[in-house]
């Protein structure tokens, strides 16, 4: 059981895909301007990583080793298209706002990385949990970054004005470079909190 607990907790804290493995940086810079978009993106990635790890794990004994990458891609692409279609049907404006980045979940290193590293060698249920947990670890950072960017850059949260009218909006925070600086700060905080992550 402790093994299962580690499978779930590790990707969120100790080996967080963004702050420790430094994967999925491009999308975390692009979709974190608004909290709403970041939340939708986070949920989409959680679903895609979870389900594709699950499916790839079911297929793991039948996939020939030499063509495994392309088979994984097909699985991931299927999940991404499903998510994209659902978003188009029910949350059209958000889907438009996220534009290509939903489609680009296919190329998100976290998805392929977890299939390669975990799903191909483990049973379906742990693989599903591992995928979901990695998605949560990714989404968590996304939401934290988006919280600060929307608050400082637009003075709003989920589109509602939070800061008083006299607050002068900071344009730099809207620009992608600032997301990188914020990510750096989160990594900094994470590392000074968790002594195991510090290089000697």
């Amino acid at each position, binding site marked *: 059981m402790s093994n299962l607990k580690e499978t779930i907790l590790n990707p969120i804290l100790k080996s967080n895909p963004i702050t420790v493995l430094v994967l999925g940086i491009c999308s975390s810079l692009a979709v974190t301007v608004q909290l709403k978009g970041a939340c939708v993106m986070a949920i989409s990635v959680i679903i895609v990583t979870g389900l594709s790890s699950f499916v790839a794990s079911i297929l793991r004994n039948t996939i020939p080793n030499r063509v495994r990458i392309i088979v994984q891609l097909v699985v991931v692409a299927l999940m991404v298209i499903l998510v994209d279609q659902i978003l188009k049907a029910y949350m059209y404006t958000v889907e438009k706002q996220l534009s290509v980045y939903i489609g680009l979940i296919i190329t998100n290193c976290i998805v392929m990385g977890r299939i390669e590293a975990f799903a191909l060698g483990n049973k379906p249920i742990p693989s599903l949990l591992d995928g979901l947990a990695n998605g949560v670890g990714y989404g968590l950072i996304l939401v934290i970054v988006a919280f600060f960017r929307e608050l400082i850059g637009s003075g709003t949260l989920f589109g509602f004005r939070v800061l008083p009218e006299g607050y*002068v909006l*900071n*344009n*730099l925070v809207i*620009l992608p470079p600032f997301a990188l*600086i914020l990510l*750096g700060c989160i990594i900094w905080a994470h590392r000074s909190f968790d002594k195991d992550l510090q290089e000697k």
Partner: protein
Amino acid sequence: MNKIFEKGGKLHWLHSTVDAFETFLHVPGTVTLKGAHVRDAIDLKRILIIVIVAAAPAALFGMWNVGYQHSLAIGNTGIDILGNFWYGFLKVLPLYVVSYVVGLGIEFAASQIRGEEVSEGFLVSGFFIPLIVPVDIPLWMLAIAVAFAVIFGKEVFGGTGMNIWNPALLTRAFLFFSYPNQMSGSNCWISLRPGETPVDGFTGATPLALDGAQAQYGTGFWDMFIGTVPGSVGETSVIAILIGAIILIWTGVASWKIMAGTVIGALAVGLIGDLAGISKVPCYMQLIYGGFAFGAVFMATDPVTSAQTECGKWIYGILIGALCLMVRLFNPGYVEGMMLAILFANSFAPLIDHIVVNSHISRKAKRLNAA
């Protein structure tokens, strides 16, 4: 130094702060008792003082110009040199206070945490920051920008001497991208007392934004050379900056190669712009426009962030001049390119040095093999 601040003393955690005040601007007379140390009169403290002396003419002229522009704006044409200077002094002083209090505060705290000596590095950056911002910038914005530049531009890289980008320019870049409304246009460069409105037909836009054509105070060559035009506090007067340049070159503090390279690069691209018919003014005018002179003399030559090799300094300087003019001539988005050009060249300075050193080594190796 009092014993309680030494190692093991009660107040040892304040060691850096006390040390900084005790050795402020000079090295104390206490000498090492054992061993021989070769000492040269020039050290970090003296270099920084020379830079501040060199920038003083630009700062003093800038203060006067703030008052002069204010008089022009309210339609007061009488000549009152002292009154103008006093008005500008009172306007610029708060900028200096904010710049030094915030910057040095963070610097002291960071040195204290790291247990290092506080160095005077920020004295120069803090002196430059008010000179390259619009005089009307709200003080809280300046405070945020200085804090950002010192923390993310300097302390995270390890403090004085370790930074990749010029902290003063980072402050300006932060303001420029964060609060574009307060950093450009025709309202920010002129300071007015509350309740005062400019006279009809007065525009506070800088010559660079106006392309030197239709400004009402005849932004001709001499106006811009002397510096009686709107602009950031310390960058308008080419004469004052040239005095600073002479001091810097004469004392050997700043590299003349970087300054010369910047001018050559700017003239080369400016000439292309002239020949292609893109630029609205002759290329030599670009040298006295906007922040070019100030950037070339004081910002590009920052010994920490510029290239270190002799050949590299030429490449670095030419890169800055050429990039600055490219932004001015070929980019519709930004009027001024000096800040962006220097920050860009700062990022490439280590690469330039690396290439220069390696090509030197391989050239020597070839000669050795041929012999």
